[in-house]
């Protein structure tokens, strides 16, 4: 076992983890933060996407101990209590969720994009979401939602 110290969604945690554990398992099974989803566990589907120190990463491919000392944002840390982030509102208004399994990853990938590039082109949105799979194939509305949110995220950028 190894001692992990991380800040998740603004809250500090200190816990013992298996040295080989991935961040996704630690978030879900030890911290009970279940927004990041278990999908392929090979880095292909994007359901587990989180933001680590400002960068979009795969929680399933991240050794938990390798990010000790880092700040992690999951979908639970996007927006504020009682107030959705503009991206979340936009996903809701544009029917960008069907079964919803990919949605946390889609939101995190979109947030990472808008934090860096508040006014992305459609091509840039597609590129940013290229690692996130939606098996309901609702991509058109997802892209529409990100576009709509792009003009409406002022004051919400950066790590939460």
């Amino acid at each position, binding site marked *: 076992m190894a001692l992990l110290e991380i800040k998740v969604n603004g809250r500090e945690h200190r816990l013992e983890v298996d040295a080989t554990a991935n961040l996704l398992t630690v978030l879900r099974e030890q911290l009970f933060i279940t927004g990041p989803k278990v999908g392929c566990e090979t880095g*292909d589907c994007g359901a587990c996407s989180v933001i680590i120190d400002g960068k979009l990463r795969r929680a399933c491919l991240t050794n938990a101990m390798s990010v000790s000392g880092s700040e992690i944002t999951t979908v639970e840390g996007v927006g504020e209590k009682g107030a959705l982030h503009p991206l979340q509102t936009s996903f809701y208004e544009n029917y960008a969720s069907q079964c919803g399994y990919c949605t946390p990853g889609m939101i995190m990938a979109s947030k990472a994009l808008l934090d860096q590039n508040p006014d992305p082109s459609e091509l840039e949105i597609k590129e940013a979401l290229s690692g996130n799979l939606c098996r309901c194939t609702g991509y058109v509305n997802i892209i529409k939602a990100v576009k709509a949110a792009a003009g409406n995220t002022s004051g919400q950028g950066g790590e939460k």
Partner: protein
Amino acid sequence: MLNPVFLAPADLNQACSLLADEAIQPLAIAGGTDVMVRFNRHRRRRQETLVCLGKLGLDYIREEDGKVLVGACAPLSEIAASPLIREKLPLLAKACSEMASPAVRNAATLGGNVVNNARHADGVAALTALNAAVVVASTEGERTMPMSDFPSAPKLEKLAGDGIVKHFAITPLGSDEIWAWKKLRQRKGESRSVVSVSMRASMQGGKCTAMRLVIGCMAPSPFASKAAAELMVGQEPGPALHEQVALEVLKECTPASDARASAWYREKVTAVLIERVLSQLN
């Protein structure tokens, strides 16, 4: 009871000593995008010592003595976005920008891609085309070898006990040099290469004076074609010659069939990509 250990040394010599100590069963980990797939897949604890390379400061990208040095732990996304790489080694920037997906590129390192050295390792293909030198640090000091001499047995453990890839030293592309990076993949995002063809070449007086043509996914590791160099250097490029080169290069290939493409298809498209790449010389 199995009890894997995680160590993150901040000193390169210490990291080399740890990796050389067989008693602790060391396994190097950097971005983790290859290593963690194995852990996830096998779902079991391992009696290993994970030696994390992330605190060694090997993520630099800088110019030194006329060479561009790319640290082994530099993430692919930073290499692709680096103004220095985009200006001096656009072939490498393009290759890195087309690997995996944005989230994976933020973690995956060029050193990891090279050490893993799979058939489809685009980093290996790009560095081989650029004729990069690999600098390896070990308990016995540093040694430098050309990419083409780097051990090609794929899968992770290869360098354990034999040092750590420190950085890649690459001569910038000259203004008279011609480069190409063409990668065929199933879709634009998040896709491994079906085939890649890359080139670093020079022309003078209408004739080819230097040619490194590298083929990826058509052998156990990407390789620089000897036939292309022999046939092209000293010659005037043209469609007939390009077709002949493509046929000869295919003789050097040992394509495999997998979920992405059949060996037959790979041969067909490799010939097309080679001719397209060589046509940039005209």
